[in-house]
């Protein structure tokens, strides 16, 4: 990559990294891991510099690399989510007023959404990608993305709903 291309690449990185970090964070729920994913994605993007300069906007390709890294990261043994004995307490959507501390609840809810559906939610509703653009980033079909996008909000709402409390269940008649 020549100096001009490298300067252009660095310029693009500095203006786009904040957005990529947020996308990565919404996917993985961990700022440290998000930084690792973005840094690796940027290194890979730089490694294919020719493709960057020919396409003009490296954004779509960067996002595609990021998605692959995220999905690949989750597939690796030892990096999967660890099951815990107790699920953090959650509130129903109707009870929600967005103040400090609610972010944890949202990230917990997002973590309950299947990873593919979570990726579609983030790409469609955070990155504002079209169905086709999201499909390209995920390497899947537009119909699959359309289906996931339509079910995503319901999945998120369901993830927000509190766990059924056994103590509140009606007592069985003796």
């Amino acid at each position, binding site marked *: 990559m020549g100096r*001009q291309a490298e300067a252009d690449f660095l310029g693009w990185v500095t203006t786009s990294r904040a957005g990529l*970090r947020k996308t990565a964070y919404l996917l993985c729920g961990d*700022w440290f891991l998000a930084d690792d994913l973005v*840094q690796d994605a940027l290194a*890979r993007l730089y490694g294919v510099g020719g493709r960057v300069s020919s396409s003009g906007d490296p954004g779509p390709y960067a996002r595609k690399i990021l998605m692959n890294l995220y999905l690949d990261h989750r597939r690796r043994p030892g990096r999967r989510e660890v099951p815990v004995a107790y699920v953090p307490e959650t509130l129903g959507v109707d009870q929600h007023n967005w103040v400090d501390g609610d972010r944890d609840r949202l990230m917990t809810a997002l973590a309950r959404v299947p990873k593919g559906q979570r990726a579609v939610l983030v790409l469609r509703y*955070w990155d504002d990608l079209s169905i086709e653009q999201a499909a390209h980033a995920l390497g899947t079909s537009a119909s699959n993305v359309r289906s996931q996008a339509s079910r995503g909000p319901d999945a998120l709402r369901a993830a927000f709903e509190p766990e059924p409390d056994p103590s509140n269940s009606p007592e069985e008649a003796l």
Partner: protein
Amino acid sequence: MNETDVKGLLAAAVAHPAADRIDTDAVLRGGRRRRGVRVAATIGTSVAVVAVAGTLVIGGTRHADIIAGPTPSAGACRDITGTASGSLQDQAAVAAAAHSVMTTASGLPTNNLANVIAHPADLTVEVLWVGPVPMALTDLATSEASMGVTVEFTAATYTKTRMQAALQLASRVDAPADDPASQGLTIAGDGTCPDGSGIKIMIAQKANNEPATSVPPAFAAAIQSSVGQMPVWVEPGSAAITG
């Protein structure tokens, strides 16, 4: 839960991002390493193909990087300085508005902010922005207007982050070893242009940090070539610049 609800939830989740710890130098090193592996693999494949074909073709012409940075016109790096006058109340109001602008801009998917300049005497905040101003900022300007602070938007050429990236590249340039006029000189200070039009570099004597008597064209050209097309104003000086 509809689309707007989901967007609101996601925006709330990333409203206060943790400190950015991405290492740009590591990105470039990693990218070069990956590129080297790819080139090696390509060469290996090419050699195999050539062996089968019985023809040897070695490489092609390696084009030199074409660097044609524009010559900055005199005075184009416009100094815009905020005013310190105005009552304490006005200063606080303008400072709060400027802070809101920066916070809102940093929360956008793409932050095209070039600079924010406060003018308490006029109860005005000047926002230098690259490209179309996002609705989040125009909404903020409307909100601030209702509280008496005017937020004005001025077009800029380069974002702050883009200029800072260029500074990183330019600050690594050494005086050309083959240019006698550049010997004993070094970069002593740098900064972004307040109007978002490029960067400034100050050249000084390496021995005593006194401003250089003149700027050798070869040194200036080397600095300009390090950042590509962005205008660079190279001047004698020894002080760090803030912009």
